[in-house]
């Protein structure tokens, strides 16, 4: 099932940021040096990631490639086992691309917020935590051992917890605690399921490998309970209605870079887990649970969109759009069609980039105006035309305009859902209209109409020199600078990826399709899955 690799690419990919985080945290030197080091390490990881991706064989008969395996805790049946299929590969690459972008976006966030509290140490901690997070992101997508996956899944919470709780906004502690408790509650329930799953499997010193646990013939009740154990954890992570309430708080209170990684990458672990574990390991139970899951997914699509329309806080609005988008992703996964699942996987990638664009570009606005409230804006298009332009692209990508990447995936999800769940597909389609509504309304309120009288908000004003502050209000317009070089640097790759994947989605779909076929083979024909497992155990 796993094609072993002679070079441990995935371990290297995970180790570089980990080593980087230690270097960044403990090496002496200025804050600037630490930032540059962090960026360097994340770029090196990206290079390794691309090199590794080039080794990936799209039409390999094995499910996992670039595999590595070593015994870790034989007493528990745990192996250190890594490997990627097309789904994991594109998600890892997405994470590796987003991390340096987020590091650039985070360049000035922390110093401004906590300069009085500790200076360089805070900056170093912040960047080191972001790098640690990158290690866990690689690990969680690459783990092919259920225990290892779980360990990454849980351990990942700690750096995020600190990122939100230490570097966020005013209510950051509340948000961090809420995030931690939601995630841990789900994770611990999953722990019971993980233990029970092992006992259902063949056991032994490598009994936690996914390939050993695929195609088990379980008692239906047991299988359903295990499915629920895994699914709830993933639904909290994703987040789906009714487990979504932690997301707006966490995303609003954290820094834009953390929010991007949180929503763009980490929440994907939930939907990724649904494909990898729920569908592959519990095919019968997945069918059993589908009606409920599909209803929840459709509710997420509509309810998330409606909540987004009602928001006055930009960051909150964006996080509610994500709830809606995750509804689409889950819908596509539980449509049990190849097109639907491939669409969902592509959606995960596209949503990562499009949400990153929204969060980070909105943060640029907030940085200038000093407010997250949408009513505080107006006519901003004329103040910073370039920023207005890229913000429009991000908004269009969130409402899935044809030509931008999200369109393809949303289309595939709906096309894939229609044959099996027509009613759900029809209702979910109205989510697209709602998406247009919330995005265009936000754009209208921020970018069109007359600019506000006091262009610079109080907090932003405090950053200006006394001389600049003394200027009359109408003259301050020139003080609101358009995109800086740093901002252009982070916006360009994001928009490029959104456009490239919009016009040539096969770049991602080619590796995804065979992987989806293999993952779905169990859920579509459970009997065939059993036969395959018997074959492999002989």
């Amino acid at each position, binding site marked *: 099932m796993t094609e072993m690799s002679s070079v441990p690419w995935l371990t290297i990919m995970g180790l570089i940021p980990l080593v980087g985080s230690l270097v960044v945290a403990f090496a002496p030197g200025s804050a600037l040096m630490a930032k540059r080091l962090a960026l360097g390490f994340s770029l090196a990881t990206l290079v390794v990631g691309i090199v590794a991706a080039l080794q990936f064989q799209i039409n390999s008969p094995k499910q996992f490639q670039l595999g590595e395996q070593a015994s870790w805790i*034989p007493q528990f049946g745990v192996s250190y086992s890594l490997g990627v299929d097309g789904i994991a590969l594109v998600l890892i690459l997405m994470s590796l691309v987003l991390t340096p972008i987020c590091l650039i976006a985070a360049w000035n966030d922390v110093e401004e917020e906590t300069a009085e509290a500790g200076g360089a140490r805070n900056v170093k901690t912040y960047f080191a935590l972001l790098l640690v997070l990158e290690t866990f992101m690689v690990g969680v997508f690459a783990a092919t051992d259920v225990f290892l996956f779980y360990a990454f899944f849980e351990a990942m919470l700690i750096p995020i917890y600190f990122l939100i709780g230490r570097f966020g906004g005013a209510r950051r502690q509340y948000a961090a605690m809420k995030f931690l408790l939601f995630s841990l509650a789900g994770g611990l329930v999953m722990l019971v399921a993980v233990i029970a799953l092992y006992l259902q499997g063949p056991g032994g010193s490598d009994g936690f490998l996914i390939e050993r646990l695929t195609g088990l013939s379980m008692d239906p009740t047991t299988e359903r309970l295990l499915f629920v154990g895994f699914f709830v954890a993933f639904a909290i992570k994703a987040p789906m209605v009714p487990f979504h309430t932690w997301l707006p708080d966490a995303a609003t209170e954290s820094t834009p870079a953390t929010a991007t990684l949180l929503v763009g990458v980490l929440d994907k672990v939930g939907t990724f887990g649904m494909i990898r574990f729920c569908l592959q390991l519990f095919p019968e139970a997945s069918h059993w649970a589908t009606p409920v899951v599909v209803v929840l997914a459709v509710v997420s699509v509509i309810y998330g969109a409606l909540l987004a329309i009602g928001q006055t806080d930009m960051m909150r609005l964006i996080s509610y759009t994500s709830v809606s988008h995750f509804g689409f992703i889950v819908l596509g996964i539980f449509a049990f069609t190849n097109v639907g699942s491939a669409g969902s996987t592509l959606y995960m990638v596209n949503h990562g980039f499009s949400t990153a664009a929204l969060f980070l570009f909105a943060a640029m606005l907030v940085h200038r105006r000093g407010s997250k409230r949408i009513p505080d804006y107006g006519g901003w298009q004329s103040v910073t035309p370039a920023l207005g332009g890229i913000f429009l692209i991000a908004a269009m990508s969130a409402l899935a305009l044809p030509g931008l990447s999200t369109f393809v995936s949303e289309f595939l999800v709906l096309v894939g859902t229609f044959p099996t769940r027509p009613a759900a597909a029809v209702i979910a389609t109205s989510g697209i209209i709602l998406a247009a509504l919330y995005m265009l309304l936000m754009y209208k309120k921020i970018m069109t109409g007359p600019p506000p009288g006091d262009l610079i908000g109080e907090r932003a004003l405090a950053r200006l020199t006394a001389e600049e502050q003394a200027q009359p209000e109408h003259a301050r317009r020139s003080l609101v600078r358009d995109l800086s070089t740093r901002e252009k640097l982070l916006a360009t790759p994001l928009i490029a990826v959104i456009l490239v994947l919009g016009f040539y989605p096969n770049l991602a779909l080619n590796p995804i399709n065979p992987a989806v076929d293999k993952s779905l083979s169990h859920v579509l024909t459970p009997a065939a899955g059993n036969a395959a497992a018997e074959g492999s155990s002989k």
Partner: protein
Amino acid sequence: MTSVAPQGLPAVFQQSTIDYLAILPLLIVFGVAIVGVLVEAFVPRDRRHMVQAGLAVVGLLAAFVAVIVAAKHQGLTMGITDGASDRRLFALAIDGPALFMQGTILLLGVLGVLTMAERLGGVGPDAFTPSGASTPGSPFETNASRAGALTSEVFPLTMFAIFGMILFPTTNDLIGMFVALEVLSLPLYILSGLARRRRLLSQEASLKYFLLGAFSSAFFLFGSALLYGYSGSFVLGDISKAISTGPIEMNGLLVPGAFLVFVGLLFKVAAVPFHAWTPDVYQGAPTPVTGFMAACTKAAAFGAILRLAYVGLDTGRWEWTNALVVIALLTMVVGSVLSVTQTDMKRLLAYSSIAHAGFVLVGVLAFDSKGVGAVLFYVATYGFAIIAAFAIISLVRQNGGEATHLSQWAGLGKRYPLVAGAFAFLMLAFAGIPATSGFMAKFAVFSAAVGTGGATGTVLVVVGVLCSAITVFVYARVIVLMYFGDPPGDTGDAANAVEVVVPSVTTTFSIAIGTVITLALGVVPSALLDLADRASQFVR
């Protein structure tokens, strides 16, 4: 009557056969404790502290080496021939669980003694009052401290306690168990009352511990008597045999006997509803003693519980399992829920230790060698973490006294990143986050319980993980406080500020070792797991 005839005393004195190498660890620790008493009498005061601490540490390490030697001499020992039946009755069982617990307790004991030895520049151990017998605040106390009195007798007391602790999981009969229980308890009652600061609280803790401990000992003794009445023997193996062959009418003796004996042991591990002493004693006792008790007493008592449950009363399991299940559930729920409302760091960890006792009980209830291995592993990992945690607590001071109120810990991470980092890591270990030993330990007991505990085991584990989620809130709150909170009353008043005192090498060593082991066992636990697995067979 029962199947086994009551045994009379042998008519003539018989020398018991003893494998001295097998009981060498016990002999060494006991011998060092006796020597410690002599040192107290004969060594001049200014050198006493060094001599006592050094002697204790060396003795414990030597005993640990002896445990390794004894591993080759496993089996029953200290046997005497019973006069009436000509059978050999063995008092001690040197087997895997006993040796593992002995080794664990000895190593934890080393760390415990090292934290107790902390002087912080004074003449005697910093945590202990110079004159335990004096009334708090009396001129006598002032004179004693002015005269440079020091409490170096804590070291022999600790050694006696450790002797009781390593004897406890080793004894093969109820009388031996009772003796061990008393030997380990009495020195702890004294040690709890010797705190240098807040002495009234400490003495109150000592008295509470003593009274409740005396009750629980009485329960244990009464239970032993009933079991003797039932089976005609104190030897665990005989009791087990008697249960499997005995008539059902005698259950009127067996069931209360088993319950009462368990009460005595569950008191020591602080299982609900026998936990009421824990928060008060943990709070009042000198902090190094608290850490030592939390780690070692728990290990010893769980060793004894394992032996009783798996060797002595295994055949009568259906009589008491349900009661123990209820106790495990209560222990987890009460421990974790009540820890939420605590505002004192030591009380918080006391309730946390109650919750942990519940988790370990889940492993005991697996009734399988995997469960035994998991319990052994859990107790060892928890011990290292809790000793380090209490050692850190003993360093956080305000105006010279320990700052144990949670609000005093606010913002500690900003000024003392290393200490706060270590403490936060230990908190994560208690919470059971991956990459800490706490996670591996929880996984071990939970997987054993789901694997062989049946439906009951699964229910216990589900409750267990929910309680873990509750405790995570508690530990996360401490981390929040240390890292995200602002220091209390940041008025710039340096004399009044909460500070972390710089400890000597001994405390530093035990904190470092405890933390490093917590990390190491979280990343590469397989060696110790393997050892615990191999040590999970009892001899009968």
